[in-house]
């Protein structure tokens, strides 16, 4: 199950969603919003998405993980909109018969989600400024403004 939501993520609800008599392991990962990035303080973060593609990419990841590990239940949830410091912005939860598969699958899902799912975050700094976070973005000189 995948979901984009503007509501807080309830860890106990997510855990119940993947818990199953068939499984001996449940791994729940929560990505939470961090107050400090190096010395810069964040007040809040805003998440935005290309929603239809984000949903389909998360569904693909779920299917790929299920093909690779003996997953019983899988839940991927991402917050959109404003998320306060300390809240969960993302939840990845899987249940499997044995713990090693659950750890591996959850870790793989989270890594792939950060690479492929079109969701972006904007930092609202304590200084009042804002920045989009775009890892790997290269700002090359603009040929149109150099001449």
């Amino acid at each position, binding site marked *: 199950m995948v979901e984009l939501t503007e509501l807080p993520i309830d860890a106990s609800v997510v855990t119940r969603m993947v818990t199953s008599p068939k499984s001996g392991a449940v791994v729940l990962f929560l990505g939470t919003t961090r107050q400090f990035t190096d010395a810069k303080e964040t007040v809040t973060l805003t998440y935005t998405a*290309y929603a239809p593609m984000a949903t389909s990419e998360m569904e693909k990841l779920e299917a790929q993980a299920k093909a690779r590990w003996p997953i019983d239940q899988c839940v991927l949830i991402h917050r959109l909109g404003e998320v306060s410091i300390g809240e969960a912005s993302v939840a990845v939860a899987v249940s499997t018969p044995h713990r090693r598969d659950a750890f591996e699958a959850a870790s793989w899902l989270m890594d792939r989600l*950060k690479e492929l799912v079109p*969701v*972006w975050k904007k930092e609202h700094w304590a200084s009042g400024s804002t920045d989009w976070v775009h890892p790997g973005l290269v700002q090359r000189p603009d040929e149109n*403004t150099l001449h």
Partner: protein
Amino acid sequence: MKIRVKLFALTQDLAGREAVSLDLDEPVTVGAIRQSLGATIPALQPVLGSCAFAVNNEYALNSVEVHETDEVACLPPVSGG
């Protein structure tokens, strides 16, 4: 052929709009769209090399051909999680 390109995050801010309409000669590829987008909105030029493109919700390389009814999106490096 008219192509509408959706923009997100920084590219939306740089362009000052949520989408850009381009008029391109057929056959149209993602590479041609990338080039035309930079020429139409010079503010986007410095970051376009780092952006991915999607056609109908699928990541698409520069060689992919695009048709008039396709949904095209310019995706800056993602930062969810």
